[in-house]
């Protein structure tokens, strides 16, 4: 808090001597002539007035936050609590929910399709995320050095992550990987005839994974920011000691950007677990199944199908909470392990 912003600093004006324009009458009794002494006093505002001022500012702050607070209470927290309740009920959207205790959760473990959806999602997350981050880091390393057209390349690589999760890109992906489409035809040229990837139970998921990997732009930008923070002296010193490129990358770059890597990993994992739109669009609207032989039945899709198509809202709510627990667990494990591999600069000093 600087003195110039506090009314408590009796008669203090901004250095240029103007009266605060918005409130001509708010500082009665002050005259331009008193400025120097007042400034000295103003440096130590009266405690009681300061507290009142602080409270008012806090209040104003909260007032500014009101729309978001209401949003969180009404649109996030409220529904979450309701969904927690529904997870323990049998609820079909139309009749009132009936309490059934842990039955939904017990049923989940006996539901083959639920296990399928868990498997599909884990494959997607465990293959897609590392590939995506590797691509992001690789391209960030290429783009970190100043070169011609750098701005263009950065934007070009970033663009997919802005649009990649949209329905239209899903449609494009579907068109590219479909039977007799671009990918199928060009691969046939090399004698590798898979047919349409989308309709092939073994190739549908890889198609979805390529879509997420292609959206490496967002983590790339974060990596770029991290790479720019790495002090150049370190590289110079290492080079003098005869460290090669790989050595420099392993011993300087990786440890130095490990907080950024951690952040990206966390964000991407949480994000990947909730994949929905692209899977549904790639499988094609109007299908009754989660892609060919349920090969694209990601967790979010199965949840949606149970809730909104089969009208088993209680079951879907239980699924949602299991997902939440799963993501929570993964996050907790990551935070536990970070001490071993994430190096914050403060620790080093």
């Amino acid at each position, binding site marked *: 808090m*600087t003195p*110039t*912003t506090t*009314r408590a600093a009796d008669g203090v004006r*901004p250095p240029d001597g103007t009266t*605060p*324009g*918005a*409130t001509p009458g*708010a500082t009665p009794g002050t005259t331009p002539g008193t400025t120097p002494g007042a400034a000295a006093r103003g440096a130590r505002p009266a405690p009681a007035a300061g507290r009142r*001022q602080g409270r*008012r*500012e806090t*209040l*104003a702050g909260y*007032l*500014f936050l*009101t*729309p978001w607070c*209401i949003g969180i209470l009404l649109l996030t927290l409220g529904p979450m609590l309701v969904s927690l309740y529904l997870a323990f009920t*049998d609820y*079909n*959207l*139309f*009749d009132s929910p009936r309490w059934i205790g842990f039955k939904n959760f017990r049923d989940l473990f006996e539901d*083959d399709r639920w296990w399928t959806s868990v498997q599909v999602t884990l494959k997607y997350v465990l293959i897609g995320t590392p590939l995506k981050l590797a691509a992001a880091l690789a391209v960030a390393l290429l783009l970190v050095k100043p070169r011609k057209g750098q701005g263009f390349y950065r934007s070009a690589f970033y663009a997919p992550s802005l649009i990649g999760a949209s329905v239209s890109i899903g449609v494009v992906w579907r068109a590219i990987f479909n*039977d007799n489409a671009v990918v199928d035809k060009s691969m046939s040229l090399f004698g590798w005839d898979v*047919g*349409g990837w*989308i*309709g*092939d*139970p073994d190739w549908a998921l890889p198609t979805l994974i390529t879509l997420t990997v292609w959206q490496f732009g967002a983590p790339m930008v974060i990596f770029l920011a991290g790479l720019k923070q790495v002090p150049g002296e370190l590289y110079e010193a290492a080079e003098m000691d005869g460290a090669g490129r790989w050595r420099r990358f392993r011993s300087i770059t990786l440890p130095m950007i490990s907080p950024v890597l951690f952040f990206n990993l966390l964000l991407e994992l949480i994000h990947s677990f909730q994949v929905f739109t692209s899977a549904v669009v790639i499988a*094609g*609207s*109007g*299908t*009754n*199944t989660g892609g*060919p*032989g*349920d090969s694209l039945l990601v967790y979010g899709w199965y949840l*949606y199908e149970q809730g*909104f*198509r*089969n*009208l*088993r809202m209680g079951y879907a709510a239980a699924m949602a909470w299991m997902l939440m627990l799963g993501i929570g667990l993964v996050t907790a494990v990551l935070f536990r392990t970070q001490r071993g591999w994430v190096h914050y600069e403060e620790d080093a000093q």
Partner: protein
Amino acid sequence: MGAGRWTAKARGVRVAAAVVAALGLLATGCGGGSGSGDGKVTIRYSWWGAKDRAELIQKTVKLFEKEHPNIKVKTDFSEYTDFWSKFNTQAAGGNAPDVFQNSYAFLRKYGDKNLLLDLNGQADAGNLSLKGFRDGLEKAGDIDGKLLGVPVGANTFAFFYNPDAYRKAGVTVKDGWTWDDFFAAAKKVRKGGGTLYGASDNANVMYLYDLYLRQNGKAFFTKDNKLGFTKDDLTEWWGRWQQHAKADELVPGKKSEQAKPKASISADLSASEFTWDNFLVRFAAETKTTLDLGPIPTTDGKRTAQYLSSLMLSGSARTQHPKEVAQFIDFMTHDPEVGKIMGYNRGIPATTAQYDAYRPQGVDAKIAAYEKSVSTKLEPITPHPAGADVAEAAFLRIYTQVALGQTSMGKAVDQFFSEAESALGS
């Protein structure tokens, strides 16, 4: 620092104003009123289908609005599966469309939940005529004495085949042929040297299995809302198709998945397929190959056990305008102009007025001839309990996994029974 130019008081006022404005936005966003104030009544109408259907329906809606200047119709449509997801959400929020496309399979599901308007009252009040329906179709939407839907079009199950391929293989499709004949024909076509498979693997089509069961004195669903067959029955049915699929006579699971959204026959993979007769319209748009409609194979040489199923219009039980909804349904089912515009898009028109108004040509003429040829064989429809749609989807999906080699027959049959029983039980 710009904040220094404001006092907290002024800031407070501004903040308060911002909050009020934000809340106001929220409030107006939530309370979209429907009162139009000029004496006009607005009803919402939604249906499922592709773009071609939407274009035709828009024309009929315009016609209706012209005849009923005091009623405005707001329309929207989506694909089949999306339609029902959307409908469920809207209905759960008490905001279902006033009038919407429905089918027999859903009458009990939503009737049990009191979401459908009983149209008997409106018929008694003279807002909706139940006269002039073909083949007793006015009863099609009658569930336990309540009229929950009025059919706009009816269709029946059919055997689709490629006449050239069949002729080349020396097979003739004739009334009263049996399942043995059918599988033998598929084999002949396949071994005949062409590139086509003898038939699409339709073991996963609930409606086809229903016909087979009916021919054997059973049905897919019983009157008391249960499955009408045993695990052994299903193992036999699926097993029989699998046996022919493994002999390379039927389209392999993977190929038919890759052909989607086309059916195997319209993707020129197979020489025959079973589905609803009005699909001929769609297939004609998807393939240049000429296709014909033939009789469903029988078990005893006589009975196909076919029935008419229909697309219907239903009203929402919560509509504010039941009278206008009834007038709308009346117009859409009886008006000859509407019949001319829609053609056989939703099946053969349900009323004689619309049936006579439209002169079928091309593929429509084939469908008309087919329905005429089976009209004497038609029987009452199998009851569809609540959850029938979920059971149908499971039937389709689980056999497909068998065809893809992802699961064993025994496991698949068990899984179907467990999913279907839980869907029908709730």
